């Protein structure tokens, strides 16, 4: 009888008290395909549609463990590279001139740090130098969640290093994150809270991944990304990441004969 009580106590204790952050993360990885399958990810391609302000913009993204990164979107039939990085420098196309421009040094420095997040910022977080802790529980729109605090490498913003903290909210029922929250680090919205809600978890190869990510700023929907597919460790032509000295676009052939416009700014 005494043993039964002890066993019961241990069981209760395990469920009520022993919910440490590593246990939550372990259950998350298990619930979404297993640690081994997660660790197999060297690079990830995401293809889908970005919805914002009534527009639907097809996009195609790529990110690898060694810092390669590509984000391109199709806008009115034209493919635009918003971000390309070979891990050392980064560039993107200016929307006005549609010519490639190098990203500022701080953006590049901060992008370099993002490479560690493949396959997941939580995978081997200690080796990455990240700090992860369970920061209580919170009701997120009616769902009970664990709030997990993730402290990543500091960001370089306006010449200063600032803390880079994200809070992930793991559904207590099934251990997948349903939301993450972070303060916007720079720009006119700096300091305001940005939330990303994760939904439509489905199979992606051997993993279970979210196919919809809706971003809100201060609670108002800003945009949502609806994915058509994930590709794990896809073929990737790295030559596209090279900074083009001329406009990188594949436009109507006729433009080849046109001189570049040199007009001054109004």
């Amino acid at each position, binding site marked *: 009888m005494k043993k039964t009580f002890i066993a019961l106590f241990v069981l209760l204790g395990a469920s009520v008290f022993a919910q440490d952050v590593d246990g939550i993360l372990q259950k998350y990885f298990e619930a979404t395909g297993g640690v081994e399958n997660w660790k197999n990810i060297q690079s990830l391609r995401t293809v889908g549609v970005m*919805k914002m302000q*009534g*527009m*639907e913009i097809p996009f195609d993204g790529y990110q690898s463990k060694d810092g390669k990164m590509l984000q391109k979107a199709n*806008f*009115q*039939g*034209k493919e635009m590279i918003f971000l390309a990085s070979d891990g050392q420098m980064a560039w993107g196309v200016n*929307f*006005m*001139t*549609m010519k490639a421009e190098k990203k500022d040094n701080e953006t590049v420095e901060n992008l370099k740090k993002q490479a560690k997040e493949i396959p997941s910022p939580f995978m081997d977080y200690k080796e990455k130098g990240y700090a992860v802790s369970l*920061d209580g529980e919170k*009701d997120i*729109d*009616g*769902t009970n969640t664990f709030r997990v605090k993730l402290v990543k490498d500091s960001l370089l913003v306006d010449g200063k290093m600032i*803390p880079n*903290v994200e809070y992930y909210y793991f*559904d207590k029922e*099934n251990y*997948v994150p*349903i939301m993450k929250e972070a*303060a916007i680090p720079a720009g006119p919205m*700096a*300091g*305001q809270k940005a939330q990303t*809600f994760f*939904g*439509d*978890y*489905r199979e992606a190869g051997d993993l*279970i991944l979210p*196919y*919809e990510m*809706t971003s809100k700023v201060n*609670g*108002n*929907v800003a945009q*949502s990304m*609806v994915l058509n597919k994930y590709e794990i460790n896809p073929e990737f032509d790295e030559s596209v990441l090279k900074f083009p000295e001329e406009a990188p676009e594949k*436009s*109507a*052939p*006729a*433009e080849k004969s*046109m001189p570049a*416009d040199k*007009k*001054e*700014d*109004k």
Partner: protein
Amino acid sequence: MRQFLTLVFTLVYLLGIAQDYKPVNLSAIKARHIGPALTSGRITDIELHPTKSNIVFVGTAGGGVWKSSDAGLNFSPVFDEHCQSIGTIAIDPVNPDGVVWVGTGETWTRNSTSVGCGIYKSDDGGDKWKLMGLENTERISSIVISKKDPNVIFVGALGALWGDSSDRGIYKTTDGGKTWKKIFYINPRTGCSDLVVDPGDENTMYASFWEFRRLPWSFTSGGPSSALYKTTDGGEHWNKIGKGFPKGDLGRIAIAIAPSKPERLYAVVEAKEKSGMYRSDDGGQHWEFLNGDFALTVRPFYFARIAVDPSDPDIVIKAGLSGAISRDGGKTFKGIGSVHSDVHDIVFNPKYSDMVYVGTDGGVYRSLDKGGSFDFVDNIPVSQFYDISIDDATPFNVYGGLQDNGSWYAPSASLSGGIDASKWTGVGYGDGFRVFKHPTKPVIYSEMQSGEGIWRYNQKYGDIKVVKPYAEAGDPKLRFNWNGAIALSPNHPDRIYIGSQFLHRSEDMGDTWQKISPDLTTNDPAKLKQDESGGLSLDNSGAENHCTIFTIAESPLDDKVIWVGTDDGNIQLTRNGGKTWKNVSQNIEGMPKFLWCYKVIASRFNASTAYAVYDGHTQNDKHPYLFKTTDYGKHWLPLATSEIKTFLRTVAEDVNNPDVLYVGSEMGLYVSLDGGNHWQRMKNKIPPVAVHAIAQDPKTGALVLGTHGRGAIIVDDIGLLQQLTSKVRQEEVHFFETDPFIMHEKSAFYSGGNDRTDFVGQNPSRSAKIAYYLKKRHVFGKMKLSIQDMEGHEIVDLTPLKAKGLNIVSWNYRMKPPKVAKGKTFVFNSLTAPRVRAGKYKVVMTKGKKTFEKVIDVRYDPTSNYTSEDRQIQYESTMKLFDIQQDLAYLVYQIDEYRTVLESLQQDSKANLQNILAKMTVLHDKLVVNKGDNYVGQAEPMLREKLSRLYGDIANYFGRPTGAQLANLHKLVDEFDEAQSQWKSIRQQADKAIADTGDQPLKIKDFEAFLK
């Protein structure tokens, strides 16, 4: 019997716990704040980062904590999950980027001040906060953090204002706030009003203790226990100091150390004689009286802050009615630059002392010349409404009066941008309270404190007339509450009520008055000695006026039924228009006597039904008291459960569903879906702020909160709660019924000027709001939400929200934009999607394998000036241009495909390919822009650009296109037809050329496939 009823009352109060009520997730119902910020509100404390000038924290009387990261240009609220009354803020000197402490509970103890809820700590610069205890201290005046060990913290607690309490004095923690020890305590009437530390020796601290007490009808400052103390051993021992202070009882003592010369102390001492500024140059052992100017001695309970320039011990600023600065070590003072009256805090930038911030009753000001001149921070909307009302305009206007900031009204929505400062119109001076719009005339009633002014403002004629009632022959002096009761009749537009101790009624908008009641209060002489109020410093502002009528309600169903609540506990009822009155509060069982009847409302569903809210906090009782009668006050049912955490200010009955009730508490809005059996707090963007008043727009169901600290807050979608029955909550998916959606068709140009820091209140959404309930959050598998026409054709694919409980998804009545031809540049006008026509549409939710549908009704704006024919032509023109742009896109696609193939053939093929390709290029160049950029390098528009521009002009309008537009449409259609014709010929030539090479005919997508 009485005991039995008390038991019933207790059981009802505990019901929330007993039945394990599960609140419904209502986070989809988001509030919006409209300010005003042009007045801001009462600031209690300002704290600057010790080394980074850009970081500023501001504590407010009722609006929480605000943080700026750009030296006070822009502020954001950072304390919205906790009580909003702030006493003091302290930044950890060792880890100033990370650790911030907030002591809650304002210490400027005016009649309307709120209460705190303990001490909080943030480890991340103010992002997230954790309660660290001292919950019962109510008011924290000071926090001192050790520079050697940040786990060692001293807290000065002023404590309870309205009664005895032992939760005050000086507390110390040595473990970073996990445990606290009260290390110095005087008595239950005396709290620590200030605690300062010697910057060079943290074992040396000075603490002022103040004996004080406020009652609903009086205030007492001072007594034998008020004194200044000093410790030199880190708080182990405290010695009374003050050699040179006035004899006799002392009151509130303000204390400050000169940072650059720590043996120099300044104190402003309240006393019966020789109140004023004292200075010590020997660490507090001896004090010299310097100055007793009004600017220093005025209202010590309200102004007790001294700031010394960190770089010059002779420069000192004292808070006060206007603020005063001395440059000669306190001997003489002059006023600081112009700021709103009632300065509560002043801080010098520790590194650059010309930079000064002050906090006033009207917000934060910044100076760059050491207080000589100031600019105002216009983005801290912490205004304190005493009351709120709305009118029946579309959109409705919001009216209300503010603590020390007059009376105002503003529209609940604007056509341009939002509700900025320019949208607010002043309609009263002084402290503003109750403001009402006449139901049918361009007349606004407003008032000033204690009935000093009651105005009738006819906006049409610019006519402002004082219309308050005066004592008639034989009457005693009329007593008006600080927040004087005014009410309109829901039955007679020109009728208005005003409450003194009598109820006054006017049938002609205030020109003539009839007293229709005897004294309805207890008229207790012991509570009518306001001319003796104040303690050591007489303070008879009218704020303590008592035994007055506070709330009045004429039944919407019977104009002879009038309910009156008084600040001394009575609810009086007449059922014959004032001929006879009955005190029905005596029938409320289980409630302490003489509590403040804060609100009584007459039900809109039944004349015999009324609700009453009592507020006991001014007698040190913070229980929520809410009662309902259904028999004209003979019996009262208690409705407040333990789910409501603190005392109440107001109650409102939903305009459509009598089971839905709202109450405003000192810490947030609560709602009941079951007639008051259970309550839950509405949280989404509604902080736990004091909700003093609630109004509901019957047309839209929008709820308007008059908060005492966060201005006016509008909850647009709360009317959905009317349908959230227990049956609905059992369904897997439930779509809510909605009124027909009206497509907004009005526009305006931006008129906000160039002020980039002005707070702009959010406009309501103009989209269709598709509301549904999910029993469970959707996490796994695909979920889709689309709008279809009644034949099932998809119009648009929305992003569904997936939360457990209530979800609201917006649809802007638009379809998808056209697919346009690929060119060198973009055509931004074609990002516009056509608007659907009025009619019925289906909302279709696909969730896993299940499908759920709801039909919605979309209508044109009935107030627009467009005929059906106008709209028909607009729609047809838009769709014609939509289609032709897609046709053009397909045409250009074909040219591009053919050109690619022909170019690949060129190298080893026939010569006429060159000719065909040249024709294609000529045609292509006519169809789309093939050069330039999207800014000033843009090329001359081609057919695509012309179509897009015309499309944008027509599709973004709602009425008949101009004749020129229609003519232009025909012209462009002709141009397109001509291009089609040319392409047909070129394509035939190209097909032949390809065939001549022996290759297979080119296979290209058909139109449908191309569009996908």
